[in-house]
């Protein structure tokens, strides 16, 4: 119990980590570039962007939030959040008119998963950028 209390540290001021996390959301690996972790930022940028582009080239579908039964809401809202987490990649593809309907076929299905996973991997990158920004990680 005492050890638990020792390990809990107060959240540092927003100014120390919000810019890195925000840039990390907008540009995959951008938070790492901002924090001078260029090599890791480049790996994240290449991986997340490649995964997203593969998803687009496989004509994966973008999720839209939908209401209905619990499973429909969970899948579509969760998928939408995953898509949005890709940051500028998602925004650009939507602004440029990418609107692929959900179609049957394993390639389209993989494409949809690639698009969502790119966003989820970017969330991991944002968490890493947060930990670096607040000094919990080297």
């Amino acid at each position, binding site marked *: 119990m005492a050890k638990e209390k020792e390990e809990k540290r107060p959240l540092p001021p927003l100014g120390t980590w919000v810019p890195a996390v925000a840039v990390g959301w907008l540009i995959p690996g951008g938070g790492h570039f901002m924090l001078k972790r260029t090599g890791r930022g480049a790996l994240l940028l290449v991986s*997340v962007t490649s995964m997203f582009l593969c998803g687009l*080239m496989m*004509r994966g579908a973008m999720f839209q939030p939908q209401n209905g039964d619990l499973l429909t809401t969970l899948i579509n809202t969760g998928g939408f959040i995953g898509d949005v987490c890709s940051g500028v990649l998602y925004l650009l593809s939507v602004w440029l008119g990418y609107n692929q309907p959900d179609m049957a076929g394993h390639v389209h299905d993989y494409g949809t998963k690639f698009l969502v996973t790119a966003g989820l*991997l970017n969330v991991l990158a944002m968490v*890493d950028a947060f930990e670096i920004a607040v000094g919990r990680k080297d």
Partner: protein
Amino acid sequence: MPKMTLSHFEAAFLFSLFSSVVLGVVTKRTDRDRLHYGLYTFACFLAALFGIGWVMYLGHG
């Protein structure tokens, strides 16, 4: 935007590769550990890919 048509294996291989790189980069604290963990997760992805593939093949009869 060109269209990409991949087999199940090719798509799963690419998925494993990109995911392993990110997992390796964000998880560990030293470059050596990051490389090891990235390779480990990639190997796990491939083992699952082949393992589950064989299970489905044998399950089909």
